[in-house]
């Protein structure tokens, strides 16, 4: 059958991709974000391709199945560095990272031209909980109140308002494990009153992150300080990219992720910082609400701790860093704004250190303990901090809460390093 001109035209569109990160990879995220052929989307309803990167733990596979079935037809699932879940029909698997963009484009094109069947649904198309059919209005309870229609509580208030005493109906729902504004794997039961978070209960921690191999190598043997600091700056730039995307500043986000990919010791942060200041983001976004206290901040370590005034950094113990005159930067406020400023300060500092170290070909002196971008890694790897959200999010408006989450690196560090990108 002749392919219609509409489908021919549709096949030329950018590929809307909803990524699911089993193993997060900053370099891969940057490649996707910078591609002119791919568009990363925040809702599975807006995607043509579901991209699953790495192995998805068994506990999260039901969530993945539900997510999979939310993509509107025609759609395809593409698997990179991991095996497809069993029930998936005709999946697309990629062995090498450098085939990713090409495969995404080809898959989308085949879908549009009718050369590939849309992926089958994995779950029956029915409500997750049956309609109870009880009560005067079929709401599952007696009288006007009570009951759990469709297995969910009624949107009625059972708690006092946390903000201004104006009590509204509360709404409880499950968020995650692949909500794009949360770290992959993080799943929470959230109760809102209006747009204020009444309660946040973490049900599944974020999946561990795989750091650049150089942080693992630094625990085994001396490594180039220039390379180590550039990897640290790259990590912070990708964090900044996510936070900027959330803030709706796509062009600065693009600049941040682009800089992360071409970062050398001679790179400068001034242009990016100038763009940020000119945009007025520190005045317009909600960044000053919650202060992480010392205890919570020390649990997270790294830039979050230093932004809360804790002068903790394993690099101060390293003789090579001492010879470079290294002193950890820190802020005192512990707010989202302080963490943004901390990122910017640490990126600039890392670039300065990389320039100095490159000139003298300096290597780290200490092994066994390394300051990762996520925090200190001495005897134990930096641990997951997802549960911290249960304490800090109640009382915040939704926008402020998401901004706060984007300013924190909550993920534990995995025991294996990131795979080198092909």
């Amino acid at each position, binding site marked *: 059958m002749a392919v219609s001109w509409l489908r021919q035209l549709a096949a030329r569109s950018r590929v809307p991709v909803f990524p699911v990160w089993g193993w997060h990879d900053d370099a891969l995220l940057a490649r996707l974000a910078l591609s*002119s052929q791919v568009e990363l989307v925040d809702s599975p309803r807006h995607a043509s391709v579901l991209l699953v990167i790495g192995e998805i733990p068994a506990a999260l596979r039901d969530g993945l199945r539900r997510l999979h079935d939310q993509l509107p037809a025609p759609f395809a699932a593409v698997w990179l560095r991991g095996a497809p879940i069993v029930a998936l029909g005709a999946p697309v698997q990629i062995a090498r990272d450098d085939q990713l963009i090409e495969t995404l484009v080809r898959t989308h094109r085949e879908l549009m031209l009718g050369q590939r069947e849309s992926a089958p649904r994995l779950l029956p198309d029915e409500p997750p909980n049956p309609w109870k059919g009880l009560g005067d209005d079929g709401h599952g309870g007696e009288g006007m109140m009570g009951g759990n229609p469709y297995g969910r509580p009624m949107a009625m208030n059972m708690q006092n308002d946390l903000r201004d005493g104006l009590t509204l109906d509360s709404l409880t729902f499950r968020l995650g494990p692949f909500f794009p504004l949360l770290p992959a794997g993080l799943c929470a039961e959230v109760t809102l009153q209006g747009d204020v978070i009444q309660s946040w209960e973490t049900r599944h921690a974020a999946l561990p992150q795989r750091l650049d191999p150089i942080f693992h190598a630094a625990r085994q043997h001396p490594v180039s300080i220039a390379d180590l600091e550039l990897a640290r700056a790259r990590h912070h730039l990708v964090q900044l990219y996510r936070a900027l995307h959330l803030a*709706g500043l796509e062009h600065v986000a693009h600049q941040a992720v*682009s800089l992360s990919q071409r970062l050398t010791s001679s790179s400068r942060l001034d242009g990016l910082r100038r763009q940020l200041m000119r945009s007025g983001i520190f005045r*317009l976004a909600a960044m000053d609400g919650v202060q992480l206290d010392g205890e919570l901040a020390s649990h997270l370590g790294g830039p979050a701790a230093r932004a809360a005034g804790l002068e903790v950094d394993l690099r101060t113990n390293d003789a090579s860093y001492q010879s470079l005159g290294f002193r950890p930067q820190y802020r005192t406020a512990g707010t989202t704004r302080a963490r943004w400023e901390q990122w910017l300060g640490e990126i600039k500092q890392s670039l300065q250190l990389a320039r100095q170290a490159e000139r003298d070909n300096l290597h780290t002196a200490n092994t066994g303990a390394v300051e990762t971008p996520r925090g200190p890694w001495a005897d134990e790897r930096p641990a997951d901090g997802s549960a911290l959200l249960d304490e800090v999010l109640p009382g915040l408006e939704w*926008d*402020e809460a998401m901004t706060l989450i984007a300013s924190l690196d909550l993920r534990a560090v995995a025991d294996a390093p990131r795979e080198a990108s092909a």
Partner: protein
Amino acid sequence: MIESLASLLMVTVVLVLGPYVVAVLDRLVATPTGAMAGDVWLGPLSRAAWLLTQQANATEAPDWQAWRLSPALYLALAAVGLAVVPWSPTLIATDLVTSVVLWGSVEALATVVIFLQGWSANAVLPLIGAYRYVALGLSYILISMFVLIGVALPAESLQWTQVVTAQESLWNVIRQPLGLPLFLVVGLGLTFWGPLNLADSTDLAGGTSAEVSGPSRLAWELARAVMLVAFSAIAATAFLGGWLGPWLPGPVWVLLKTLAVLALLLWLGHRLPRVAPERCVTLMWVVLLPLSFVDLIWAGVLALWA
């Protein structure tokens, strides 16, 4: 008769071509930074074709009628806005004596339609987006009301053609320097664009349209784009002298001025971050609403003096 047909044709052409112009301009504004890569000219068409081939998904127990109707209603409101834009002293689809008031009602009714779009999906994130717009919509409308009364005062009329005629000696953008900046804020709010995109924002994974796909999503995006064009044309009429200008025919001047306002709005959309809802409320009620009073008093004093 011929002019009535011509004016209806103008409205139809803008309805059809407006979204494409918005999409191309938006890409041109964004492309220098690379934030929206891809084919500038063909990209909007291929994206529209993709949405037309995609399934319009269902959620669990949505209000189907309202969900399907809301993009059409938003588009209809934008069309009503375009219908009162005077392209020349005589080329105007509906030259009501209360056309300024009609535009005000378009802004008010947009609140209902945007709420409907978010509420009818029966899903959490669209619902939050819908409530957000309702919470903030009133502040945009109040500012708009004072600014529009300000432009009606020198014309001594609530008719857009009279508002333009009253600018023959001096455009309102100069006569009332606070008016256009305040009205642009209203425009960003009404179309929930850029810094005031709180209804369809990234923190809600797309907000009122987070659960929408396929042709329904295309219809919603088209409606938003047409509303942006309609607003730009009204802004050009209210503050930039509408059809007034040397050498070129009146409709060309309206078109050029509309494109200039549109480009400015799109540029602001890419250069400013999304304003936090709580700060947005403070900004509107504490700063911009008092400024709109000042604008109105200024306009009133000038009218009395004249």
